């Protein structure tokens, strides 16, 4: 069997001579397919890789969750209310062990997984060391399993990013793809941890990438879906929480959820302010204190846990109980406040672990408490306390983590309940606005800035208003000529406005620039027997058309190539809306910067 030699690319598999057997033909087909699949710049390969990353991340997250549960069972027992001695000793003693591991074995395990993934994307070309994955797995399983008030989602996100990064490096992906692959893994890890692929995709787009990049979106979705499928294969497909059925019976009840939005926003703001103020002070403590901080946090969390063990760990069963209205509003309020304290202690101590689950916990308790109080004063409310707890989760999440779209979809997805989407949207929006109004820098950006790294702020980027052509163009500034207009008359019109650019409209959708000097020369040569037409005075080819709504930074690419560009209506390419020059663009940018 013979092959022509490959020409340059492995994708270009040579046209084989006529195969002599089915086996040979199959082999050729396989080679062609495989070469096309693993082509270095092929999108197909990237998508296949995304599926693989998703499956690996799903498996890792399953093992991680099981590890947390085993650790919890071994250390704290199977009761929801363990003995006080255990509650006090386990988190503090294991805090020392965690500190030793973090300081000596896995220094990168400390900190927010979201920010480390962003760092990988924007600074280190998608590089997440595999030790981070191992370190996060071990230290977080120990921390959360021993009762520290932290959650498994953020570490899962980072484990996914780490796995993706390792695979990308092994497969020698291009730098561009390597940068893209960490968010793909992050989405996979988060989706498996939350059992919520849509929320994970939204979160990664909303918080890590910041744009709806078509190149990344397909891979992110595939990775998220495959990781969730893998996770469900082993752990079941049930929603994270079982929510009693509920619906909004009267629109006036939306006011009750608006109140929840205000309360959730204020609490989220207070929590953010506390972390913003306390973290730099704790970071300034001598290095020796780093050994003791997780243990001290464990002791404080344990001390709270003696009274209310519900605040320990991720707290999913407790959220479930709140959703079923098992606590009165006073208990819910106490749990919310104590969980804020416990989570603050654990997080500020540098113990590895995430903030997602505690955020949901606090939100659920706060929502239930607000619902309980409102029920006390307005017994006619049809929404149950559990419903308020459900809405509260999204509210606090939006206020604290500042990802409003993710918050709404996450509540819907983790509960499998679509009926409350309107109250969630209202409450979430209010909390988000309150938090943003009084805390300009979001949590993740604040943490990186405190660590001395300036990563692009997705929230700032999201809210940045781009200048468009309409902001810079000069309307009614040009003189328009038809191609059959005599040169003499045209020169006379042009002379009346010596500063205005001269544009010729030869046919619909085509605009050309007229040379003022050429026009005057043409007019001078004009004779009644042989009139000269204005079209003879055009310079260069047709001008590129731009539209009033186009972003100015995109137009900037070719604005310098032409003295002036015609801005035309999208509905009528023959109608001139204005003209734009490089000077106009720069003036608009300067003006915007000054404002």
């Amino acid at each position: 069997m013979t092959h022509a030699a490959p020409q340059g690319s492995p994708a270009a598999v040579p046209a084989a001579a006529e195969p002599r057997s089915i086996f040979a033909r199959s082999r050729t087909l396989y080679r062609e397919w495989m070469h096309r699949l693993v082509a270095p710049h092929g999108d197909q390969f990237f998508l296949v890789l995304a599926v693989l990353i998703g499956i690996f991340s799903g498996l890792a997250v399953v093992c991680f969750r099981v590890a947390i549960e085993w650790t919890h069972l071994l250390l704290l027992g199977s009761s929801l209310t363990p003995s006080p001695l255990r509650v006090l000793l386990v988190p503090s003693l294991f805090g020392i062990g965690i500190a030793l591991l973090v300081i000596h074995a896995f220094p990168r395990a400390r900190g927010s997984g979201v920010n480390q993934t962003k760092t990988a994307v924007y600074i280190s070309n998608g590089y997440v060391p595999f030790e981070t994955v191992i370190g996060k797995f071990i230290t977080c399983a120990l921390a959360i399993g021993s009762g520290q008030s932290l959650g498994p989602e953020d570490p899962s996100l980072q484990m996914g990013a780490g796995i993706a990064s390792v695979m990308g490096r092994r497969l020698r992906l291009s730098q561009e793809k390597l940068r893209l692959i960490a968010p793909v893994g992050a989405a996979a890890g988060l989706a498996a941890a939350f059992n919520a692929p849509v929320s994970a995709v939204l979160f990664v787009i909303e918080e890590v990438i910041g744009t709806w990049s078509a190149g990344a979106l397909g891979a992110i979705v595939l990775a998220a879906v495959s990781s969730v499928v893998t996770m469900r294969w082993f752990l079941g497909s049930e929603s994270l929480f079982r929510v009693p059925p509920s619906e909004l019976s009267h629109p006036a009840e939306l006011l009750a959820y608006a109140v929840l939005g205000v309360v959730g926003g204020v609490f989220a703001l207070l929590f953010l302010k506390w972390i913003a103020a306390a973290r730099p002070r704790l970071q300034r403590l001598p290095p020796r204190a780093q050994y003791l901080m997780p243990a001290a946090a464990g002791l404080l969390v344990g001390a709270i846990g003696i009274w209310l063990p519900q605040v320990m760990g991720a707290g999913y069963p407790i959220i479930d109980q709140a959703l079923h209205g098992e606590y009165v509003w006073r208990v819910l309020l106490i749990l919310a406040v104590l969980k804020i304290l416990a989570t603050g202690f654990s997080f500020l101590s540098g113990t590895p672990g995430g903030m997602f689950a505690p955020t949901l916990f606090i939100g659920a308790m706060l929502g239930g408490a607000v619902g309980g109080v409102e029920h006390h004063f307005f017994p006619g409310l049809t929404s149950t306390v559990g419903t308020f707890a459900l809405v509260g989760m999204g509210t606090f999440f939006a206020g604290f983590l500042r990802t409003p779209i993710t918050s709404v979809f996450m509540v819907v997805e983790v509960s499998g309940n679509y009926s409350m989407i309107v109250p969630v949207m209202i409450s979430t929006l209010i909390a988000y606005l309150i938090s943003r109004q009084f805390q300009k820098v979001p949590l993740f950006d604040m943490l990186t800035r405190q660590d001395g790294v300036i990563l692009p702020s997705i929230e700032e980027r999201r809210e940045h208003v781009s200048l468009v052509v309409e902001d810079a163009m000069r309307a009614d500034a040009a003189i328009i000529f038809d191609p059959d207009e005599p040169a003499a008359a045209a020169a006379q019109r042009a002379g009346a406005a010596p500063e205005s650019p001269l544009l010729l409209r030869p046919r619909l959708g085509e605009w050309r620039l007229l040379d003022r000097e050429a026009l005057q020369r043409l007019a001078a040569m004009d004779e009644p027997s042989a009139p000269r037409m204005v079209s003879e005075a055009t310079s260069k080819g047709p001008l590129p058309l731009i539209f009033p709504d186009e972003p100015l930074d995109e137009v900037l690419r070719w604005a310098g190539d032409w003295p002036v560009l015609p801005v035309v209506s999208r509905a009528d390419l023959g109608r001139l809306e204005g003209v734009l020059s490089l000077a106009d663009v720069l003036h608009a940018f300067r003006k915007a910067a000054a404002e």
Partner: protein
Amino acid sequence: MLAVFCRREARHMKSRSTLTNRACAGYAREAVLASSLILLVLMFALTAFVTRQYHKRVHELGDQWFAKGDAELQGGGADAAIADYRNGLAFSPDNSVFQFHLAQALAASGHTGEAEGYLRSLLSASPGNGEINLTLARVAVRRSAMADALRYYHAAIYGVWEDDPIAQRWRVRRELCEYLLGRGAASQAEAEIIALANNTPKDQVAQIDTAANLLLRAQVWSRAEDEYRLALAGDRRDQDALAGAGAAAFQLGRYSEAIGFFTRLPQRGRSSGDISEMLATSRAVESGSPFLRGLSPADKAGRLRRALADSEARLSDCVQKSAGVAVPGQEPAGSDPQALLTEIRKAQGALKRASLARSLTLMDADMNLVFEAESAAARRCGPPSGAADRALVLIGREAGGDRGGASP
């Protein structure tokens, strides 16, 4: 590995020089992908093993806590059971049996709101489940939400039951009847009790007794007597049925039948409070009523005289005992005891003087007088305590003199 791939491919293509770095990269990818797939299989196996062990342990723990909760609940420790069930649910959050038992424990310990949350959640998963609807109905009863209770009871009656659905539905309807009777909703109860009686198997004497007893309590006397007769057809010595049938016959004014049922009871059953009273009253009616068929005119006249004498004695006795107690103007118009006594005495005198035929024409008016006297005495001195007086009230009522105030 990569080199092996590349060399092999180069040999294969008979042109080592044309094999570019990119081609080698492609084969390296193949190798990495192949090893990734192997690793994937290994991780799959490992994860499967780990999760299987984990699920096994979790199920064990869930079952242990559940069994503990059941034991606590049966021992009356609802609060301890709640904690155990919650522990169990932490390991098996979707276990509807655990959730249902927790809801029952919550309801039993008065946490109706929480119980309802769980039950509604369960109900949304299986809306026709009879047991869940029944528990929701009980929760609604606890929080005095009658409309909800009725809705859930009906849903339970028409719901799905796994074991012996006919008997379960019968029991639920009986509970609903008891609830309605307890709430004093007699008209709603009547319809349910009749439905219960209609759905009672004809060979289940105990169930027929129960239905008949509910009919009796709802004062559906005739239907109650029918049901008791049905029960007696199955068991002639059924004491409950005899007592119930007697009571129903008594209420229907069929005193001889009542006596017949009561006397078939053994002595001990017959001597119990209500039955002995009804029996004595029935006998007094039978021996004192001038309206009974088959009596000779002389007997009727004699009974009329005795009735007048008894009522006169009761009223005068009552007037003496309550002298100074009665408030003037409290008596209904025409019911002044003294005036009544005077009228009775007049009637007694007239009866002595009248011929036998004439006496019988006065019988309705005289018995009406007797009833008014008994009623007046009842208003002053309370219900009659003696069988003879109770009988007189009943006889007077039978004669059409029921104007309220007396009850046997």
